[in-house]
C-alpha cells in the first residue's frame, strides 16, 4: 500500500510529533508514504473565507502533483484533509471549475485519485492484522476519550468515511492496542481551532467544555487526529485550568503516538514536546511493565 503523503504546514512545525509518529507507525505496518514533492499549503479556513475558488485552487495543485505520482493522498491533519477532500469532490463533479483551475496548474487534476485521512487508512480492516502483530505493549492503562472534532467528519456527504454524529474509527484503532475508550458526548464538537490566534477567549471556553466532558466520562487522556485540535487542547489547557479553576491534566495524544508507543517505536522526542505531561498517565497502573520501557526511551 502506497500513498502520496501530504503532511501540511503544521506537521512541519507545531505538530512534528504527529509527523514522525505517523511515519514510524506507517513504516511498521506496511503503509508506504511518499511525500508530495514541493507541496503547498491547503489554504486552511482562510482560503474559503476569502474566495471559494481559492479554496479549490490551492488543494488542486497538490492533487495534480499526486495524480502525476499515480497515488491516492494520505492526509494526517484533519483540517487539511477537510479542505483537500472538499476540493477533490467538488472538482471531480464540477468540470468547468476544474478546467478553469487546471489552466493555471502545471500538473492538472483530472479526478483520477482521491484523498484519504489517516484514521481511515490505518483503521482499514485489512491493516487490523498487521497492527495486532506489531503491538508489543498494549496500553491498557489508558482510558481515552477519542476526539474527532468537526473537520474530520463534516460535512458528512463530503467526508463520509465515518459517522458524523457518532464516529468510531479512532475508537476502533486505539481499542486494538488495548486502550479503553469512553462514550462521551463531545466527540464531534468544535474546538474553535481557526480562532487559536485571533479569539483566544473563545478557544478557552470551547476547550474547557471538551476537557470537562472528557473528564466527566472518566477519561484519563484524549486522543485526536488533528494538529489544530491537539494544539488547542494541549497548549490551552493551562489557560483553561487557570480561568475555570479546575485541574484536568489530560494529555492530548495523536492516535499515531499511541500506536507507536504500543508498537514500542521510538517516540520519546514526540512526547517531550507535549505541553501537558504524558508520563504520568503512561506510567499509571502499570501493566506488563510497558511503562518502564517507555521511560527508558
Amino acid at each position, binding site marked *: 500500500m502506497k500513498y502520496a503523503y501530504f503532511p501540511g504546514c503544521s506537521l512541519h*512545525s507545531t505538530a*512534528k510529533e504527529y509527523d514522525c509518529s505517523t511515519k514510524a507507525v506507517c513504516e511498521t505496518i506496511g503503509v508506504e508514504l511518499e511525500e508530495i514533492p514541493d507541496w*503547498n499549503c491547503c*489554504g486552511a479556513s482562510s482560503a474559503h*473565507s*476569502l474566495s471559494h475558488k481559492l479554496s479549490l485552487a490551492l488543494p488542486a495543485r497538490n492533487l495534480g502533483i499526486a495524480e502525476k505520482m499515480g497515488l491516492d493522498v494520505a492526509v494526517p491533519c484533519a483540517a487539511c484533509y477537510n479542505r483537500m477532500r472538499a476540493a477533490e469532490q467538488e472538482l471531480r463533479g464540477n468540470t468547468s471549475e476544474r478546467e478553469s483551475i487546471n489552466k493555471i496548474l502545471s500538473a492538472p487534476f483530472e479526478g483520477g485519485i482521491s484523498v484519504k485521512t489517516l484514521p481511515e487508512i490505518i483503521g482499514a480492516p485489512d491493516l487490523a492484522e498487521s497492527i495486532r502483530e506489531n503491538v508489543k505493549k498494549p496500553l491498557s492503562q489508558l482510558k481515552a476519550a477519542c476526539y474527532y472534532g468537526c473537520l474530520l467528519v463534516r*460535512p458528512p456527504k463530503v467526508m463520509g468515511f465515518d459517522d458524523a454524529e457518532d464516529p468510531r474509527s479512532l475508537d476502533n484503532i486505539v481499542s486494538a492496542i488495548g486502550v479503553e475508550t469512553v462514550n462521551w458526548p463531545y466527540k464531534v464538537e468544535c474546538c474553535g481551532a481557526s480562532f487559536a490566534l485571533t479569539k*483566544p477567549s*473563545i478557544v478557552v471556553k470551547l476547550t474547557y467544555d471538551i476537557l470537562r466532558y472528557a473528564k466527566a466520562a472518566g477519561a484519563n487522556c484524549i486522543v485526536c487526529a488533528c494538529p489544530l485540535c491537539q494544539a488547542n487542547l494541549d497548549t490551552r489547557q493551562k489557560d483553561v485550568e487557570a480561568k475555570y479553576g479546575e485541574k484536568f491534566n489530560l494529555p492530548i495524544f495523536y492516535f499515531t503516538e499511541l500506536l507507536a508507543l504500543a508498537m514500542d517505536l521510538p517516540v520519546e522526542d514526540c512526547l517531550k514536546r507535549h*505541553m501537558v505531561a504524558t508520563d504520568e498517565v503512561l506510567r499509571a497502573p502499570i501493566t506488563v511493565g510497558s511503562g518502564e520501557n517507555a521511560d527508558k526511551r
Partner: protein
Amino acid sequence: MEQPAASEHNTESPTIILGVRTDADFRLRVESLSGEKVMQCYQCGECTAGCPMAFAMDLMPNQVLRMVQLGVSKPVLESSTIWLCAGCETCAARCPRLVSLSKIMDALRQIALSEGKARERNVARFHKIFIDAVARDGRVHEVGMLARYKMAARDLFSDMGLGLRMFLKGKLKLMPDKIKGVDEVRRLIRDTTETPPHPSPKRGGSAAPPPSRRGLGGG
C-alpha cells in the same frame, strides 16, 4: 480600535425597512456565491441550537440567514457573527432543510471583505495574512505569520508566554520553508481572488503590516 461601521449600526433604528430600501440583489449575490438556496430555510433555529460559537455571536446564525432572506445586508455584513463562524459545519450537517449555513457564512465574509465592512478586523486580518503567507512561501510559516499578525493587530503581548513555551518545546520553527513552485501558487491566488493579496517581496517577512486596504489591514 475604532469601528465606524458598527457605531453607525448601533445608533440606527432597528426597524428594517422593506420594499423600499431592500437590497434585492443581496440575496441573489449570496446565493450565487454560496451555491445555497436561501429561501429553503424555514427558520427553525437548529443551526443556532448546535452552533458552538453562538455564545460569542452578536447575531444568531438563523438570524443571519433571516436577514439574507429579507435582503437586508448592512447588519449582516457588519456583524461579528460572520467572522466568528468557525466553519465547523455542524449547522450544515443537521439542517432539516439541507441549507449549508457555513457556505453562506463564507459568502458573507467574502462580500464583507470586498465591501470593506469586516467588523471583526482581527479575524479578517488573520485570514488575509494567512493567505499572504501562502503567497510568500507557498506554505505557512508560523513564526513569520504570527509576527505579522501580532503587528497588524497591535497585539504584541498577549500570548507571549504561550509562544515562549511553545518555542521552548521546539514547536515553533524559526526559518520558513519556501517551495519551488511558489510562483505557480501566487498565480493561483491572484487568479482566484477578486482582489489578490500582495506578497511582500522581501523574504522572511518584515514586521511591516501588509499593504493597507479598507476594512482589512488598514485599521
